[in-house]
């Protein structure tokens, strides 16, 4: 069964360093997402991406975050200058079509980011 893959599974970084989290969405999917989950808390939407541009972003997704689809298969989340509060599990997801039509999101297994 096709799946969303994420790398790395776990990354420890120094505060202030840049981090890039990578994702390979399901190949025929057109919509891509990043979510995050701070330990023990709810899953929070960060950003959605379609047709090579951001379609929606949350207030969490400030100027230190950026997303890119550098080629036909990868989708990346960059955090420019990490803070302690960025420590969380980051989930990449993809869907075939827009969600309101009843499509489902397929999630990757996540990338644990620990900022020290």
């Amino acid at each position, binding site marked *: 069964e096709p799946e*969303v893959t994420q790398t790395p599974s776990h990354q420890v970084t120094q505060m202030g360093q840049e981090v890039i989290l990578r994702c390979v969405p399901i190949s025929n999917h057109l*919509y891509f*997402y990043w979510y995050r989950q701070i330990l023990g*808390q*709810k*899953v*929070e*939407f960060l950003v*959605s991406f*379609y047709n090579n541009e951001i*379609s*929606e972003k*949350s207030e969490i997704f400030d100027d230190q975050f950026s997303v890119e689809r550098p080629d036909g298969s990868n989708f990346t989340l960059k955090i420019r200058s990490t803070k302690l509060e960025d420590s969380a*599990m980051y*989930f990449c997801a993809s869907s075939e079509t*827009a*969600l*309101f*039509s*009843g499509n*489902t*999101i*397929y*999630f*990757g*297994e*996540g990338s644990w980011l620990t900022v020290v």
Partner: protein
Amino acid sequence: SQQGEEDPQALSIQEGENATMNCSYKTSINNLQWYRQNSGRGLVHLILIRSNEREKHSGRLRVTLDTSKKSSSLLITASRAADTASYFCATPTYYQLTFGKGTKLSVIP
């Protein structure tokens, strides 16, 4: 924004018992979805119910939707230890799913 809120926050039952989780949301929806998350893992889609449906079944899962009360329930029948996980309801806008805080289910063998 649309937001699902589940209750109870935590539920502990014996294997073989049924588990019921509830979700409330705030605004009109096109559909409502339930996801499962094993500890430290990604979210897995369980079932989707559309706004014109009142009940839907999938294996041991039964989901109901009451749009007049803006609520949904997820029933897991004959629970197993492997059902131990967090369960989230989620409501979509065009470009995102908004998740509730989840119900943590523990099934004791």
